[in-house]
Structure formats: C-alpha cells, structure tokens
C-alpha cells in the first residue's frame, strides 16, 4: 500500500511538469503579450499610452526576456510557493485569488450537495421503476436540464427574477456586506442569494447524475445475487439499500477526481453571466488579457487538484470496495 502511494506520487511530478509546459505554451500561443492587449484595450477606449511607460513595464515584468527564461522563472518560483505576478492587478497572484477562493468553494459545495440531494433519490426511483411514467417524466426533465445551456438558464432566470421580484441576481450578497468581515448577517445574506447560482449550475449536473445513478443501479439490479436475495424473501427496500445501491455508489467516489478541480474553479461561464465573485470569471479574464502568470498558476492549481483528486478517489475506492486490488494494475 505504502509503496503504491509513493509510486503514484512520484509519477505525479513528470505529469505536472508536462502539464506546466503545455499550459505555458498554450497561453503564449496567441500573438502578443499582456502589454500589447493592454495597449489595444486602452486604445479601443480612446485612451493614449505612453510608449516609455510600456517599455518600462515590459522590462519590469520581464516580458522582454526569451520565452524559456520566463518559463523557467515561473516554474522555479512555484516550487518556492511564489506563483508569479499578476500584471492586471499589479500584485502577487496568491493575493489576487485569496478571498474569491472561499466564496467559490462555498458555492461549489452547496451546488454539489444540491445536485446529490436531488439526483440520488430520482436516480434510484428511475432505476427501480424503469419504463414507468415516473421514469419517463423525470428522464424528460433530466434531459431538459442537460439540453438547456447553463448560461441561457442563468440569463432567463436573471431577467425573470428582476422583472417579477425586482431582485438583482448578479453577486452573491447584498452590496453593503461586500467589503465587511464575515459576520452571521453576512452568511445569512450569502445564503439568501446563493440558491439562484446553485440552481443554475446544479441543473446540468443533476441531470447527468440522475442518468449515472440510474444506469449503475440498473446494471446491479439485473445481477443474480439480487434475484437470489429476492427469491429468499428479503424485503425490497432492505435488499436495495443493502446490496445493489452500495455497489452503484462506486462511481460517486471515482467522481472525486473531477470534483476537486470543479469545486475550486466554479462554473466559469455561468459565473461570468451571473457576475459572481468567484474564481471562474477571474480565470477567464486573465486568459483573455494574457495575464499569463495569473492564468498559468491558476490552471496549474487546477491540474494539481485533478491529479490529487484521482489519487484520492483511487485510494478511497480500494478501501471501500474489496473487489478492487492495488497490486493488479502495478504488477503488469
């Protein structure tokens, strides 16, 4: 077990290095650099730019150096916990992300809970009552949830809520709390606002989750041990809870790998549309303005989350499901 974990962690290092290289290259692919998009943006608004100041900034930010030097500097910095400098915000990347991370995690966790709370009972119902009216009706709803793009749902809800209730959906709390410390009142305000993004972000995920629960459970329900259990007179509820449902849960655990990064990044597009103070819009803006260290470090962080998440879900699966063996895959 220990050597397995050790080996897995060792493999993570070249993986992350490869990812960092790809991230850096892709961010550098579009023509120009941060300062050029900065100039272009100012000029589009009719503002003038002092070429001398730009030259100073280019040197100051190190953008005049060759690309490999910039890369090495960035990677070396990350090992020391220095994620580089955000040009857009004029401060270290770690300080930029700070407060947003907490809000993003709150939104994401609530969304995940919402998704599970809705999807799990429905999925179980659909599987046990396959091809019934209830199954068809809920499946239809589920497909609608997948089919409607999140951003559109967000726009429609924002419009309706504004016209009907006069509320502004943009943001996560009443404006007077935005710059205040975290008090009980502020949390209350947060939870009064959070349900809209949660519903919008959650619908797509819920629908997908329903399908997964249904499919996994149906697989198990066909198996012989279920038939045997039923033949021996186990009550249907107990049989379901005790055996097939537990096995059907495996995919929940293997989902952790993709869950971790999602919790950190939030749903980018929806967050932009709803103008949530989460990390998603920040990442998008950083990519658009070629604020490369902010975007790069953030993507790196997400990559780390994926790698760690996959490891955790593998270990958890092994611990929870006695059928899974660690040695099998490694020995080959």
């Amino acid at each position, binding site marked *: 077990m220990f050597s397995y974990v050790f080996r897995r962690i060792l493999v993570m290092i070249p993986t992350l290095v490869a990812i960092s290289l790809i991230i850096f290259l892709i961010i550098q692919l*579009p*023509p*120009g650099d941060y300062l*050029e*998009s900065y*100039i*272009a*943006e100012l*000029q*589009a*608004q*009719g*503002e*003038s730019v*002092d*070429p*001398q*100041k730009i*030259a*100073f900034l280019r*040197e*100051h930010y190190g953008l005049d150096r060759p690309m490999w030097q910039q890369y090495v500097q960035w990677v070396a910095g990350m090992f020391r916990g*220095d994620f580089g400098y955000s040009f*857009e*915000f*004029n*401060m*270290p990347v770690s300080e*930029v992300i700070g*407060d*947003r991370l907490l809000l993003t995690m709150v939104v994401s966790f609530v969304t995940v809970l919402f998704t599970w709370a809705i999807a799990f009972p429905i999925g179980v119902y659909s599987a046990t009552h396959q091809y019934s009216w209830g199954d068809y009706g809920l499946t239809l709803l589920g497909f609608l949830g997948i089919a409607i793009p999140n951003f559109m749902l967000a726009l429609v809800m*924002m*419009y309706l809520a*504004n016209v009907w209730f006069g509320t*502004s959906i*943009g*943001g996560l709390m*009443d*404006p*007077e709390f*935005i*710059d205040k410390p975290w008090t009980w009142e502020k949390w209350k305000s947060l939870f009064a606002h959070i349900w809209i993004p949660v519903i919008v972000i959650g619908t797509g995920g819920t629908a997908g989750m329903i399908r997964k629960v249904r499919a996994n459970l149906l697989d198990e329900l066909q198996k012989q041990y279920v038939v045997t259990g039923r033949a021996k007179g186990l009550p249907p509820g107990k049989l379901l809870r005790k055996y097939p449902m537990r096995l059907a849960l495996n995919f929940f655990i293997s989902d952790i790998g993709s869950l971790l990064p999602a919790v950190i990044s939030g749903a980018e597009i929806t967050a*932009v*549309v709803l*103008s949530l*103070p989460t990390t998603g*819009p*920040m990442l998008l*803006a950083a990519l658009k303005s070629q604020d490369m260290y902010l975007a790069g470090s953030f993507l790196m962080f997400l990559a780390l989350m994926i790698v760690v998440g996959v490891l955790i879900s593998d270990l958890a699966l092994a611990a929870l499901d006695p059928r899974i063996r660690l040695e099998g895959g490694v020995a080959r």
Partner: protein
Amino acid sequence: MKYGFRSGVVLGLCAWLALVAVPATAALDEPPMLVEAVKEGKLPPMAARLPAKPLVVPFDGKARVPGKYGGDLRMLMAKDRDIRMMVVYGYARLVGYNEKLEFVPDLLESFENVGDRDFTFRLRPGHRWSDGAPFTSEDFRYYWEDIANNKALSPLGLPNVLLVNGKGPRVTFPDPLTVRYTWDEPNPLFLPALAGPSPLFIYRPAHYLKQFHARHIGEDKAKALATEKKARNWAGLHHKKDEQYRFDNPDLPTLEPWVNLTAPPATRFVFHRNPYFHRVDTAGRQLPYIDRVLIGIADEKLVPAKTGAGEVDLQARYLRFDDYTFLKKNEKRSGFDVRLWETVKGSQIALYPNLNTQDPAWRTLMRDVRFRRALSLAMNRHEINQVVFFGLAKPSNNTVLPASPLFEPEFRTAWARFDVKAANALLDEIGLTRRNADGVRLLPDGRPLEVVIDTAGESTEETDVLELIRDGWRQAGIALFSRPSQREIFRKRVFSGQSMMSVWQGLNNGLATADMSPEELAPVKQEQLQWPLWGNHVESHGKGGQPPDLPEAKELLALYEAWQKAPDSAERARIWRRMLAIHAEQQFTLGTVTGNPQPVVVSRALRNVPPKALYNWDPGAYFGIHRPDTFWLDAAPRS
C-alpha cells in the same frame, strides 16, 4: 443598495431643511457625513480644511444649480482596473479645460505661461492632500528630483512630453507655493498633458511616498521593505504604491473629489468624499455634494442589462448606441433618463486602406489617390446614417467636427458625396476596365478587385456598416469581404502589412484646437492603421518600419514637425488646416458618419448632469469636464 441610497438622501434632506430653516453658519454647512468626525475633533471644521482661496465653481442657475449634500452615486465598471475612471471623472488637474475648452487653473491658484516656454505655477495656500498633509512645492520637487530624474525609478528618463528636442526643462522651486518650468524652446504639449484625462502627474504626495524611497530611508531599509512586501526591488514597491492614475492604492493621498477606500481585487469599490477637496459652490460649501461613489464590477456585456434594471445612477461607459432602444424601454420602470450626448470622434467608423500592404499590386492601387477617392465616392453615407444610426449622426469624412475652430465645410464634404458615376469614371481612368462575369473589375494581373477588410470583430455596428458599403462598392465594380478576427491578431495583421484594408474608429479628437497636437494626422505612430510601417519608422527613430515615400505623407510629417516649432497659435492653426486639407483631398482614411450619439443613463434623482453635452476622452475626460463634484441627488423619488 436602495436602503443605503435612501438613508443618504434622507440625511441630505435633513441637511437641506436645516439650511433652509436657519441662516447658513459654518457648523451647519458641514457635510452631514463629516459632522460626527468634526464634532469628535478627528477632522478640522470645513473652513480649516479648505485652502485659503478655494476654487469657486460657477453655478449659472439654469443648467447647474446649487445642491445639497449626501447620497451614494452608483456606477458600473467591467474590470477592477477601470476604477482609474474615477481619476478621469474627478478631473482635479493642475490646469484643466473648462466647458469652452480653455485652460483654467484648478488645483493651482494661478499659472503664468510665457511663450509656451516658461511656466510659473502658484499653489493655493492651505491646500491639503486627502489625508490632511499640506500640498506644496515639495511635492513637485519630489517628483522632479526623486522620481523623474532617479535612475532606479525612471530608467528610461523623462516622459516624452517633458522633452523638447531631447532636452528637459529647468525646474525651480522658489518658495513652498511656487514652481517654475522653463524650456529653451516652446513646449506646446505641456499644458494639454497636464489637463488630459490621463494627466501627466508632475507632483506626488511626497510625505507618503518617502517611506518607500531608498534616498529617504536608506538602501538597506528600502531593500528589506521590498523583500517584506514581496516586491522585486524597492523601485518596484515604490512604483506599486505610487499609482495616482490607477487609483488602486487606498493609502495613497489624493487631490481628487473622491478617495478610494477599496484595494483591488474587489467586486465593489467604495469611494468617500475627500474632506480636503479644494472646490466650493457659490455659497462657499465644500464640494463634492455626493458623499460616496459606489462602483460595481460586472461583466462588460452585462452592463447594459444591469443599467436597464436601474442598478446605476450614472452610466455611459460600456453602453453603446445599439443599447439605446432597450434602455429607453426601461426608462419608466427603472426611473432614469436616457440622454444622448454627442461623441467627437472624427468618424464613428472609418476604413483604413493600408498603404503598406504587402501585395505589390494592391499596394500600388492603395497609394493611387484616384482609387481612394473612388472608394469614398462609392460609399452611401446618407444611407449608413439612416439605417444604422436612425439618422441621428451626420455623414462626413474622417475630420474635425464643426464645433472645432479649425473646421471648414470642405473637410467634411470633399469626395464624400455618393456618386457612383464619378467613382466608375475614376476607376476606368486608373485602367481597371476589365471585368469578370460578375461585373467585378479585374486587377492588371487578372485577379478580381476584391477588397478584404479586416475587423477586430468586436461590434455588430461595424459589420452592419460594411454591409451597406458593400452595396455601394458593388455598383462601382468592387467586391468587399470582411474578415473578422480578434483585436491583437487584427493589429498584428495590419502592422505587418498582411491586411489590405481595415476598419476601426476615426480620429480620436474631432474637437481639436490649434494648440492640440496634430499627431493623428501625420505618420508618426505604428498604431495608425493606414500607414503602420511609416509610423513605426518615425516612432522608432528610424530603427523599424519604412520611411514614408508618398509626397503627401512626407509633407504631413514635415508639417507636424513644423507645428512643434511654431511660434504662436495662428501659425499652428495654419498648419492644422493644411494637414486637414491634405487629408480631405487624399482620403487617406475613409470616414462614414460622425457625431453619433452616446447614450448616457442618468437617474431621475441626479441633478446638474447636462441634458446635452459632449462625451469625449480628450479634451473632456468624459464626465470630468462637467464637474461630477457638482452633481447631487434630489430627494424626489426615483420613478
């Protein structure tokens, strides 16, 4: 939000009632927001906070009426970095433009200008920074000696505006309230730079910045401080703290009407009134009237929707003419007025034939003035105006507006009529007489005359206009295709000559006066899309690009150089007119319409915002020239 606003209004109302009930006394005049602090002794009373001679803002009683204190002004911006607009809107400058575009002292008590060479500035006695420290010539000295002439902070030397023929001014500080700048030769760009929306700051809050400067605290301590704050070196730290224009350091004292209290990143920025602001109304009450400015950050594309929902009190940025009908529909529901202000771009949308395009056949054609004239004649500007701008703009070449003293009607109309016959005649004269089966003319080498226009792909307005131009050109046997890309790629393509024609805005300053720089008319910058290589050549002092080789372009460059050395305004005006005439005759850029309206959303409670005005960057500083410190919120209900 609404609650905060109402309580502000109620406070303002109380103050107003008090004023009406009791004859004004110094104590009662205090802005309600500051009363508490003054009572507790944290702030001196108003009389002690104001300079000995404050700037009295004229109130003519019609468009601008004395108001009352209090309230929050809500605005929206798209990015944290946009809070610099508060420096633009605040518009506290040493010397600023008034509404007639004349230079008037603002922060300064007076200034003296001898032949554009010798400038003497007099400060207001008792003028203070927003933290209460005195504003004196020491702040100018700090900039001049410790920043502009400091190798670590300004490795590239003085800003270009301060250099005349490569030589900087002599700066002296005879006493704490006097500063003098002297050049050997005239520097006509100095005052415009000080009065600009993004001004040249030749002063700094020295008392605050000294704590980061190696000369004042010693190299070792500065280094330690930089390491502690995770800056690359002390210069980097100083640079970061010293952002008067970015306005992102809440600790940095300022002279603007509102002081930023929020450090980015944030989704809402709060600005409080500057208790030491130097302007007063005619009753002697300190401005600004409005206590707080709240700036929400929302996605650029969401700004019109949020504005329509009534989430702002004053908004023009990120609203475009396309949004007008939507905003108008929401006027009643959300309790605001949509006003149409005039923009002063030389042309709302202009075409830039690239004289430096790589393809030799096209380059020859683009450089042929007859071809450019034919293109212009085949554009139906009247139709563009009617279809895209509801007839609210004016068909025009890309030139100055009638409001500019340099305007002449020919600049606007030369080669700008819609005359397909004349256009066809010109094209035949060039020798482009062969046509293909579709009726498109052929180049001498047999390729069809298909003009591909690069667009930055940002506005549907552009594509709509191109669609209309396509119809006109078609009648002249020219095919038009547009090639949308993304802003940086667009610029790269134009700069390298890969693009043969591009579409962008026209001249930025359609309100030019003789004393403003005519650099937009001469090939001096790479960003000029009609001759990027020539511009690059001049900008890089001959290191890049190509020297201009068209006689008219050379003449423009020579005229620009002559303008810089011109002894007086009359001579400068003569040069300006000559340059404008060359542009009108040569059609280096093809204008469409001008003076198209900018929607400005103004809450019904907000007073003193002019109903009709100019909305412009420089000169104008958008709202700045209209003095937002005199805007005030009425107690009248919003709807």
